[in-house]
């Protein structure tokens, strides 16, 4: 029963199997064990030395595990049981859009025509894949309200890098040298990191008392040196900036571009489009709004949509449709590499196609009204949960901004800490004992003891209610004995881990007797 306090000593809440920890696959290795049986060498065998001289060969085999197939399966199935996952429970991790991942998508992605299609197959024999990509580009373009899409980048931050490099190419083409990029202090860490990687200086813009961009600060900092403003709207506080059109005007007024971090697109699909707000470049996180499963840290995909001014610089290759089916001709889908002003490639081949398949399947399933309804429900769920939490926990965990939120919202644990003596981290860890994944914690940075909560549209009212109840119970419990939360979690495969010593004396791989790379 979740919520019952367990102590380290009672041993009842954990299976003995988990108590001893899981040995690594290397520690289960026994010389001579194996799973793989090589196909026969069916060609005349020549001496290896003749084909590959010894000086080019490794001295000893790579020390890989020696295990039987049943042991491999058991090992990784056991490991899997030490994970919390979206299919098992509520995962309100703010900014991450942990919505349901339909299994249909896995089935389609695994079809041999997708899964075993070589990336260098002649386009004439990859028409299905190229058509899917072209159609996905068109759908994303419509959703973003911008005319051109490149599917190329591999994740959100890769899309950001592409977008900032597009900005660079755009300005350079005009003979302008701009050196700074503005990011709000609420920005996700990837934004400033991207700016630095693209060779620009970061200039921070403040946040006003309503949680929006401090427009006066923006006005003061936007000038001829400014290449771009990177923004997400709704922002990382879950708030839609009502002054967005004014912001766009200021940015365009100094000749800079306006970049949209699409991590929060789930709030506005079919309701509002970044292109209509005035953004020039948008990235999508297909692993957020468009259901690509997160896989414990990827894969994802980070397509970008851009205005006509930016289009010439898009990465290559670009998926295009030639002879669009006129005169009874079959349309032909192709990869266009001949883009002289392109910034070039940022990766191999034509992007994370397997992710495109899943996201396109999702768009087909939902359609225009379904996407809009998904965003409406995401916003409804978030506001409902915020209201419920204010009801049951408002004294300790008030919303950081008393406003209607979009698809997510931020609570501040400042008064909880002062009044109950537990921190946001303690609350998060105690939630694990109640069977919930905690929200994003300590982000955005400008909110004291922040909890960023994103329920998504795929959760039921009952789940949201149960989560609110769990928070209320933890606060009640902390009122009686804060030590319980401070020591949490108790029911998980391991308890709080010593991160400081992990960083101080890093053990990053299985130790071996002889050093590597001596």
């Amino acid at each position: 029963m979740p919520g019952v306090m367990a102590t380290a000593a009672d041993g009842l809440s954990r299976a003995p199997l988990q108590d001893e920890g899981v040995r690594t696959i290397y520690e289960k290795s026994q010389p001579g064990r194996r799973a793989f049986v090589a196909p026969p060498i069916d060609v005349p065998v020549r001496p290896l030395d003749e084909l590959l001289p010894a000086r080019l060969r490794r001295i000893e085999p790579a020390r890989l595990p020696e295990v039987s197939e049943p042991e491999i399966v058991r090992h990784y199935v056991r490991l899997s049981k030490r994970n919390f996952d979206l299919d098992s429970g509520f995962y309100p991790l703010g900014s991450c859009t942990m919505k349901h991942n339909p299994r249909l998508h896995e089935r389609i992605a695994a079809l041999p025509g997708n899964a075993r299609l070589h990336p260098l197959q002649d386009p004439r024999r990859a028409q299905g894949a190229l058509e899917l990509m072209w159609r996905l580009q068109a759908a994303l373009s419509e959703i973003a309200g911008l005319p051109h899409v490149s599917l190329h980048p591999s994740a959100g931050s890769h899309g950001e890098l592409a977008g900032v490099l597009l900005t660079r190419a755009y300005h350079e083409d005009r003979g302008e040298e701009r050196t700074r990029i503005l990011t709000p202090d609420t920005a996700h860490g990837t934004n400033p990191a991207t700016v630095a990687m693209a060779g620009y200086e970061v200039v921070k813009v403040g946040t006003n008392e309503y949680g929006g961009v401090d427009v006066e600060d923006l006005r003061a900092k936007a000038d001829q040196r400014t290449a771009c403003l990177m923004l997400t709207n709704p922002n990382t506080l879950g708030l839609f900036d009502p002054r967005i059109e004014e912001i766009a005007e200021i940015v365009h007024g100094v000749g800079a571009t306006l970049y949209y971090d699409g991590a929060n697109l789930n709030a506005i699909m079919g309701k509002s489009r970044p292109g209509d707000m005035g953004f020039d470049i948008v990235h999508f996180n297909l692993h957020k709004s468009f259901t690509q499963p997160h896989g414990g840290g990827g894969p994802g995909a980070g397509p970008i949509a851009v205005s006509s001014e930016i289009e010439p610089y898009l990465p290559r290759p670009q998926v295009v449709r030639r002879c669009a089916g006129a005169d009874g001709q079959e349309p032909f889908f192709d990869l266009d590499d001949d883009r002289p002003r392109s910034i070039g490639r940022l990766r191999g081949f034509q992007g994370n196609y397997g992710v495109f398949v899943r996201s396109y399947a999702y768009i087909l399933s939902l359609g225009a009204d379904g996407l809009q309804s998904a965003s409406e429900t995401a916003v409804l769920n978030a506001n409902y949960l915020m209201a419920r939490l204010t009801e049951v926990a408002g004294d300790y965990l008030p919303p950081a901004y008393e406003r209607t939120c979009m698809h997510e919202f931020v609570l501040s644990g400042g008064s909880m800490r002062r009044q109950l003596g537990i921190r946001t981290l303690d609350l998060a860890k105690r939630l694990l004992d109640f069977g919930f994944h905690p929200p994003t914690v300590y982000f955005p940075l400008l909110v004291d003891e922040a909890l960023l909560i994103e329920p998504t549209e795929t959760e039921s009212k009952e789940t949201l209610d149960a989560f609110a109840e769990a928070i209320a119970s933890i606060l009640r419990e902390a009122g009686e004995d804060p030590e319980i939360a401070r020591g949490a979690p108790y029911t998980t495969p391991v308890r709080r881990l010593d991160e400081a010593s992990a960083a101080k004396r890093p053990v990053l791989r299985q130790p071996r007797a002889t050093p590597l790379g001596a």
Partner: protein
Amino acid sequence: MTRYTAVTDSDLREMLATIGVGSVEELFADVPGGSRLKRPLDLPPGKSEQEVYEQLRALAARNVSSEDELSFLGAGMYDHYVPALVEAITTRSEFLTPYTPYQPEVSQGNLQAMFEYQTAICELTGLPVANASVYDGPSALASAGYLAKLHNGRSRFVVSRGVHPHAREALRTTSAGWGTTIDEIDLHNGLTDARALAEAMGDDVCAVFVAQPNFLGAVEDLDELVAPIKQSGAVAVVSCDPIALGILRTPGESGFDVAVGEGQPLGNRLDFGGPSFGFFAAREEYLRRMPGRIAGETRDADGRRGFVLTLQTREQHIRREKATHNICTAQALNALSAMLHLSWLGQQGLVELCELLVQRTAYAREQLAAIPGVTLVHQQPVVREFAIRVDAPVERVLERCAAEGVNPGYALNRDYPELGEGLLVAVTERRSRADIDRLAEVLSVAVAAERAPAEVA
């Protein structure tokens, strides 16, 4: 309500009452008029699961996959056999659907798998530290460039033309704002021109990039290449094929600083080019400049062994503009696939697989070289890929072969015009001797048919 939501009419009423608004529309009051979409999205209406399946199955059926033809395509991604257990494990909800392991107490499976994977990458590359994955091979190489730039701040990259064209371009694109230039070193007899490389060195060289085996399949002599790089103080980076590392001298043994590469050959599907993953390993001195997530071992409050994401002060969420890279979401599930494949192959199995590839590839090379009008681009040792030149327009030759259900490989004329009508042929364990014989037969007919009549006579 749509297929993936659960709000009934009565839920909606209660929820709006709790929030204190009359309609969902009121929740969007902050969106100013000019930014509102006042019409439905111009997309088709939603479809049932079955309809979506049928429609996308029909699209997939229009692709000619490695299931439909006899394919020798490689050039960066390879049609290796992926054992069934990879799919069984990676489609489990517990690996498929969590986020990045921000809460280690409930992510031990994922974190331990990362630790095991990092170990395997270190063992393959002979280098002591590895991260938990980056996007893919070409972006991994570009990321190594950023590491070098942060490390020594120098201004010139030197890149062998044996490096995958996509990786060379990714470096060029990614480095646009670093104030760096790129010099390319030609190939000579299929190998990086060692003398030209040595001559290109200087104390302004930030990093040098080579590939093992190189894009033409040739095994480079890494020990010879590394000496002048070391002398100049540049960071020595090699992009490797992880399967070939099962038999080749490791980057670590040869003295390279950083090894990166495309991970797809390890347990990942072709997927028309992604998602796969890039691996990234380095010497200890570069640890604090590594990109991306790294899992490390530690203890919990009760003294039990456990794993966490560590050295996070390198990363964007802590260091922001001072981070060593901007990467956040990477390729965890693809790296897990690699670990599963490597566990399945095992220590001896990987060696046996490599020996099989070397023998079959040698056989294929011999058979193709015996065809009139086919010559080898180089005679260097190879593992599972080699380059030939056909005495006819290569595209036309490929087209004839395609009509016979055979795909002989990747035409090199666009990336390496200097080689003439070049073709890169890859052999995996899925291509038997009979398959190779069939390739030789079909290719020889195609080349004969396309050779200029005067030369045939």
